[in-house]
């Protein structure tokens, strides 16, 4: 117990000053009313887990996306935005569609990484059904394979309207 | 009729009843046993007659005549008819062998004596002194029913039990009103009929009147 206390005191704050909101992202009209409270549900539609690692880092102590009002939630019912990673594999096409239907409006879909954008390296693969936009309407795309956490945090901040 | 002759006659008659019951236990052939029971009926009638004459009870004499007819002639006749249409052997089969039966009868007589000791102490008239014998004849009748295999012998046993009771009745009370005797007689007659039908029914069902065959009826 004390060892943990000592490390906490020694470590102090690990968060670096966060990136400002990415101005280049254009948001759909209905996204306006979030005002600093964004609940996100991560859907892994067949990614190689590279984007997941970066996305998790975005919520870690160093990048701390939570300070901008972004929170991960367990159920799409609670979520405002679906962060989808990876090309949509054949098996994940229907579940992704069902998750999108299960999310209450006003909702957004954020395609994280090149695979989600346009199947990236897996384009034309046997098990690949298509990119995310083939299954659900995508609002925001974050390029990169994988995109670095600060890019993710900037996008999140922009979406959250922070 | 003097008292001493009355006592001798009475003892003779009651003694005859007791001897016939022992004989029924001892004999092997069914036909003779039936005849012995008839004799016992007459002896019983004799007892009634002797008492009736001595106490000048005309009603008792009428009763003794009826007993003689019923127990001496009618009932043994019925028993013979039951036996006649059976083709089985006429031998007596018994659960316990003959000597053992006789010993048991002796023991039962002793029991009868001890049981009725208080009654005998009440009055020392001849009749009362003879009463234990009536009880003994009744018990031997039950022994007969218990220890014999054949249904016919059971009937005889019941008859002997009834004779024993009748004997106690004659000796105990100074004669029995005719109505009661008629009632008892009709009951016995009825019992005989039922037993007779039952025996024929057992014979048709089992081909013999050995009661042990009834054992299969148990679940």
């Amino acid at each position, binding site marked *: 117990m004390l060892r943990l206390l000592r490390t906490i005191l020694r470590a102090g704050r690990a968060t670096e000053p966060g990136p400002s909101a990415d101005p280049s992202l254009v948001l759909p009209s209905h996204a306006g009313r979030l005002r600093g409270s964004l609940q996100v549900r991560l859907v892994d539609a067949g990614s190689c887990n590279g984007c997941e690692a970066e996305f998790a880092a975005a919520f870690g102590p160093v990048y701390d996306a939570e300070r901008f009002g972004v929170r991960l939630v367990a159920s799409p019912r609670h979520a405002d935005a679906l962060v989808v990673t990876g090309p949509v594999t054949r098996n994940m096409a229907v579940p992704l569609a*069902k998750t999108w239907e299960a999310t209450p409006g006003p909702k957004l879909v954020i395609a994280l990484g090149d695979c989600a954008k346009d199947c990236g390296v897996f384009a034309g693969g046997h098990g690949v059904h298509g990119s995310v936009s083939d299954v659900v309407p995508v609002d925001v795309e974050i390029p990169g394979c994988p995109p670095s956490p600060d890019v993710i945090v900037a996008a999140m901040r922009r979406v959250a309207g922070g | 009729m003097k008292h001493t002759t009355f006592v001798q006659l009475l003892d003779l008659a009651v003694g005859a009843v007791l001897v016939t019951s022992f004989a029924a236990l001892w004999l092997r052939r069914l036909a003779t046993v039936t005849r012995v029971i008839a004799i016992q009926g007459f002896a019983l009638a004799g007892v009634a007659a002797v008492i009736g004459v001595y106490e000048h009870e005309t009603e008792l004499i009428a009763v003794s005549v009826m007993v003689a007819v019923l127990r001496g002639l009618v009932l043994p006749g019925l028993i013979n008819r039951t036996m006649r249409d059976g083709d089985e052997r006429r031998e007596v089969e018994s659960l316990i062998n003959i000597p053992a039966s006789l010993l048991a009868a002796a023991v039962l007589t002793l029991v009868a004596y001890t049981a009725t000791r208080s009654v005998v102490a009440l009055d020392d008239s001849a009749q009362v002194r003879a009463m234990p014998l009536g009880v003994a004849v009744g018990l031997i009748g039950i022994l007969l029913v218990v220890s014999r295999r054949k249904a016919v012998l059971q009937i005889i046993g019941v008859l002997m039990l009834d004779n024993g009771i009748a004997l106690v009745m004659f000796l105990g009370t100074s004669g029995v009103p005719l109505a009661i005797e008629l009632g008892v007689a009709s009951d016995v007659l009825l019992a005989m009929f039922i037993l007779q039908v039952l025996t024929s029914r057992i014979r048709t069902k089992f081909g013999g009147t050995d009661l042990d065959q009834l054992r299969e009826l148990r679940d």
Partner: protein
Amino acid sequence: MNTTEAAFIAMAVAASAAVAAAIVLPARSRVVWVGVFTALSATAGGVASLAVLVGGDSFVTVIPDVFPLGGVRLEFDALSALFTFGTALVAVPAAVYGIGYSGQGPSSRPAQAAWPVLVWSVMMVPAAGNAIGLIALWELMALSSTVLVLAEHHHNAEARRAGQWYVAMTHLSLLAIALALFILVHQTGGESFAAMRAGAANVGPVAASTVFLLALVGFGVKAGVVPLHVWLPRAHPEAPSHVSALMSGAMVKLGVYGLLRVGWDLLDGGPLWWGAVVLTVGLISAMFGILHALVASDLKRLLAYSTTENVGLIFVGVGAAGMFAASDNRPLAAVALAAALLHVLNHGAFKGLLFLGAGSVLTATGTRNLDHMGGLGRRMPVTAATFAIGGMALAALPPLNGFVSEWLLLQSLVHSLPSEAASVAVAMPVAVAVVALTGGLAAAAFVKAFGSAFLAMPRSAEAEAAHESPFTMRTGMIALAGVCIALALLPTLLANPLERAIAPATGIADGAPISTNGVYVHLAGIQAGLSPLMLTLGLLIGVVAVFAVVRRSRARSTVRDIPPWGCGRTLQTSRMEYTATSFAEPLQRVFDDVLHPEIDVVVDHHTESRHYVESIRYHSETRDGIENRLYEPLLAVARRWGDRARSVQNGSIHRYLTYSLVVTVVVLLVSQ
């Protein structure tokens, strides 16, 4: 000829009219007229008890030479009036419900004839005024209820076995009660209760304790407290639902009435250990009952076990009252007894309602197994709503009457501590802990029963095809739900009737336990207040306020009829739901050293390879612990003696005749 006497006569006339209707009329109209007349008879009983409880008059009469030994004496004081009132509360709606229920169920002549007799006798038993009267009415009640338990035995073997258990146990209880009463009559010299009370002084302590223990056993069997409860979870589920509603709601309470009458009225209270024994029996019953209710997946068996639990709570109240009275803390004893009596009324109302609901579900789906139900809330709205009200009262949740009597019981237990009797100081914390645990488990049992029966998707074809029950059944249930709500909101009305009802139990009573000014309930000698009316009002205001705030801001539309969120699974079927067994599994695992569940999991693999599982079957069954550890050995011994005795009868005529000879000889010798 005061109102009570008139009401009694009306009760008897209506009951006999019902019996006549049952025998004479053809099936279709028989059910209707029997129901109507039984309801009238029950109402008459209610009027009689109200006249005594509220009006304050009493009623004593003697009906000479009904039996060879002597007449039946009726004595109807406030204590018996309370129990008869509780019976009437359940009987009227149950009779109306019976009309609809018997249409499909037991409309045979004997069943229909026995029903009014049962209602009449359950209402008359508290009115009995002498030993013979009590035993006669008790036996009449036992017989009529046996006929009703066996009503459906033609096509239901389980009912036959239940009937056997029921008859054996009730007659064991009759034996004990008769013994107790005869000892009492012998000791006090008087045959009527009044004479017994007068002669109570010269009953020695040993005799009094034996009478008390015999009465505890006798009335304990009828009340269904733990060691003697075995017939209850067997008989109640098999009886027709409106009958088991009356049995659980009212007939079981007569055990409590009997104990109170013999223990604390005729014997005028006793030493401390009387109360301690009753308290312990109550605690064990409450604990044992609710645990088995939790793991039962047969709805009516669940309700039957919860009856054992609630009777346990009533015994806790009575036991606590006895202990307080013995350690002369009279005001608190009055509060504890008031709590027990109030729970008698409350339990009668909500348990009757739950059994009627269970019956309605049984007629609609044809099954009692909770695992095969589901989704009935949308198909049977009235049954679901009334079952919810009854269930919330069972779980002692605030707005309903269960909470009021549980609160009163807790108050009486909690304010016992600064007492010098060491046993009280040790017993009370344990009592509070057990009452609290049973309260929590009762809430879990309610959620399980209501949730797996009425919510989510139907899990069987019968549940799918279920439809609401006929009009009479619905009116019965709605009436009883109304009674529950009335009892919940206006316990203040019951303040002085309760005070009058406590008075006869001279071993305990003195003073007014509950004082009220219409809205608040204050307890004598204790700084505690509760206002069920205001609490419900506050809750309603809270809910309405929240609803108003939410509705104003609900700018967006509501999306309906979409599949629930199941991790994006392609197909959402009812097989994924939590059934009653799976709901109770965690609690079963927590209490497995008490329940000893028999769990068997059958996994059958594909023929080709062991790694692929074709199907997994999970079955868990909890046999009644007491039954197979206490009753089975006893029955085994009895059976062994029976077999030995059977060898005597081996079919040989000669052996039988020998017996007669031997007996004759022995008799002759012995009778010197």
